[in-house]
């Protein structure tokens, strides 16, 4: 099976946007007028996104709070180390939906069209999340065909993996190739971008199996 990472066709779900906007799973729903206006904004958002993904992978060894990648890259974080404890390989993934949606959102803000700005922002966040979930699923599916399973994903800026360390992580990934840059505060631009590390471990952790699975 060939590795196929393709996030270009993701769809922004109305339900996910509602959830993002605070609508709970209760009987409370937007009325017809509001639903129409939210859906129209989502349609606009769908036209403005251009999702792209970049991935990298290396075999790893975990020692203490250090995750050492075979190419020399390291992550220093006890929480990442804990997550990748039984893993022999790790993927880095970064996705972005591109700059157009944020430009439009900012235009709405400048025009005091706060409603549209808020919906567009929520739709963009949903799109970025959907893109990284899709890439994650594709990685998991690829690894499953090699009898491996993947860990949960973990992003810089959470726990003790410092946001400032995102710079090296994105450099390793080559995230600039899909237009992701960091600002001085280490926030990704476009803002609706997500990066994460995902570990890979064998399903049955016998040394022989692990050796076979190191593809």
């Amino acid at each position, binding site marked *: 099976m060939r590795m196929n990472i393709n996030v270009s066709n993701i769809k922004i779900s109305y339900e996910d946007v509602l959830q993002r906007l605070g609508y709970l799973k209760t009987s409370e729903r*937007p009325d017809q007028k509001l639903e129409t206006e939210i859906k129209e904004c989502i349609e606009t958002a769908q036209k403005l996104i251009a999702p792209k993904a970049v991935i990298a992978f290396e075999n790893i060894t975990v020692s203490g709070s250090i995750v050492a990648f075979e190419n020399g890259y390291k992550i220093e974080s006890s929480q990442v180390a804990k997550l990748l404890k039984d893993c022999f390989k790790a993927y880095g993934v970064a996705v972005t939906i591109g700059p157009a949606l944020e430009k439009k959102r*900012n235009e709405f803000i400048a025009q005091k069209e706060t409603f549209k700005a808020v919906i567009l922002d929520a739709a963009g966040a949903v799109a970025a999340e959907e893109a990284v979930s899709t890439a994650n699923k594709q990685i998991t599916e690829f690894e499953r065909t090699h009898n491996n399973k993947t860990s949960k994903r973990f992003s810089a800026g959470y726990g003790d993996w410092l*946001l400032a360390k995102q710079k090296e992580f994105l450099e390793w990934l080559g995230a600039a190739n899909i237009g992701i840059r960091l600002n001085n505060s280490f926030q990704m631009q476009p803002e609706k971008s997500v990066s994460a590390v995902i570990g890979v471990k064998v399903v049955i952790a016998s040394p022989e199996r692990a050796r076979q699975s190191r593809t």
Partner: protein
Amino acid sequence: MDKQHFLDLLKSRVLIMDGATGTQLQKKKYLDDVEIPEELNIKFPERISEIYKSYADAGSDIILANTFGANPIRLKQHNLLDKADDIIREGIALIRKAGKAGCIAAGDISSLGEYVQPLGQLSFDDAYEAFSFQVALLQKYGADIIVIETMTEIKELKAAILAAKDNFNGAIIAQMTFTQDGMTVTGTDIKSFLAMAESLGVDAVGLNCSVGAKDLARMAKTLCASTNLPVSFKPNAGMPVLINRETRFPGTVEEFVESSLEAYSYGVNMFGGCCGTDPVFIKALATELKNKAPVARNIKKRFYLSSRTKAFDVNEMKRPIVIGERINPTGRKKFQEELLNGAFSLVKDEARAQAAAGANLLDVNMGVPGVDEVNLLAQAVNQIQEIVSIPLCIDSSNPKALEEAVKNCAGKPLINSVNGEEAKLEAILPIAKRYGCGLIALTTDDEGIPKTAERRLAIAKKIIKKADAVGVKRENIIFDYLVLAVSSSPEQTGETLKAMRESKKLYPECKTLLGVSNISFGLPSRQTVNSTFLKMALEAGLDFAIINPHESWGVFDPLAKQLLENKDPGAVKYMEANASFKKPAVKQESAALPLARQLYFAVLNGNKEAVPAVVSQIINGVNDPRGNDPGVEDPFKTVSDNVLEALNLVGEKFAAKEFFLPQIIMSAEAAQAAFAIVKKTLKKASNDAGKVIIATVKGDMHDIGKNIVGAVLESYGFEVIDMGINVDARDIIDKAQEINPLAIGLSALMTTTMPEMEKAVNLRNALGVKAKIIVGGAAVTKKFADEIGADSYAKDAMETARYIKGLTAEAEKLRS
């Protein structure tokens, strides 16, 4: 090579285009020492020559110049605008040097990197100017043809095609790039692309890049089955995957050639490759296809109308093709008032409702006395196209307004209308020609409405003659043989139907149209007459009907038929049967409420478009519909009380999780609209409630939460000074010293930027600034707020407003 020579060549054999340039340059690491690939033309021309030559050797008949992004917008971004001339000249000249004799040098054009309004910020005119600049240089330096490629947005494509048509003598090929579901990323499908490109007069259409050869061959089938224009096919080698800093294309040469052969069987005329393909791909392609005769396509004539995302072939549609007539302010006071205020809520409501009721097109008329129709009609087109996907019929008697609107319209619209008047023909036919629109032609002239079918047909003949001369295709003309009220002109109905029947014989390429509802003017039970007349008109060959799609069109009444056949003199029989008919009154609940309550509900329901009219009426002391509204005695208090009462209920509903963020924002926007009018009327420099500074702290770029807070505070009448994002604590406190606000609201989304809040609090304390500091944001907690000495923490915008309202109350208490 002139255009005709190129088109003749395409008739005789398929042509091989080149493969990827960009990915070849990347692979060879030729881009490492230039800003953009086009700079190579002048900095390292040998690298470009090498690529050109490799494709010429592989068998390419057409080589695309390395001018893909050599447009002024992109060149300026990279400080290369002053080199544009050299870059484009060399881009073409290097093909001449590297290619073999007869090699066709194509000027390559692609996206400007910004979407055109309304999706993006770039105006249509700016996009057009940018493309014109590039095309003019390609013409100057002798490109044989123009290939517009990898386009994803249809209005940008429209600007590029128009620029190419205006500035280039050779053939123009327009290509778009599609996703797996057969649409561009901005939602345009193959037929909508074709409808617009064909109507604008390109010489060939095509598909490039996209999702690999296999899927693109499927799309080529649809394209080839829909047009007789030459078709180009230039797929990438599959969707690229960026793995370990390397771009990998999954497609193989075998798959590529197999899919190209499939596309050949559908009638594709030009074959090449896009990203990820190289001379090996092209050589394999040329081995199979070079010099083959094209597979003939004989597609029956189609007449498309289209929007950004939807196209239909008029010839395939069930009759009548319904044009919704409701977006028209004539005789509708509220509609006119809204347009005078620059609002489009009723326009959008009518658009949604008519589309839902089954209209195939929407007529858009903005003819309100005293408005800037040129601007308003174009705006309406943009607004409507954001929310509905059906094509539009642009309706105006002002040629300038028509031109601006059809230019801004995504897709192929109808123009409503021209007539036989010389001045109209001279003004409007060139617009229809330039923008490739369908054109409604009324069979009237300077002498008014002709009484006979023969005279109307004579005007039709005149219009056709003029249209032929200008180059408007006959299939784009839709004749309106005019409907007059049967009550006042009973003999005229027969003339109209007769003219339509004759028109179908004389001008079979042209379609027919009627504004059906005019027929029943002055009669009771109008819909009975309208519907009966529609059926009679359909039998006479009616294609398009401008009607209200909400009405029932299934009625056929024998008495109405007699009347329409002029067999009921004085409409005696019809009137006897229908005189007592009364149309059920439309309920207008909100209008029956006192004005103050109308305002309250407008804010509560977030209906900001309704607010200006109601507030203006309150302020101007307009008689209340109920006549006894005590609020009008103190209009400003009435506005304020009702807005705040509504907002308070919104806040309660939010706290009870009955309302959510969108409703808060909509109510806030409605309240803002009310206070804006009060402020303007009172001509006050600042708002009553007091000033509040808001800012996202230094290092943090997150904007949206702060803006929500700002909108809600403004809705309560506070004057909000929004200092933006990434704001230094010192600047915030300096500003507070200067303007003495009630409060400072600070936002931070990340733990790394939260310490800036503490800096602001300390600085405020050190400088003795009195303003309270309230903090919030995803990572901020009440505990943190307490620890840093902030005066309050708010978990959302409503809590912020509640806290600051409390400060106002305290301040008032102190004053009193």
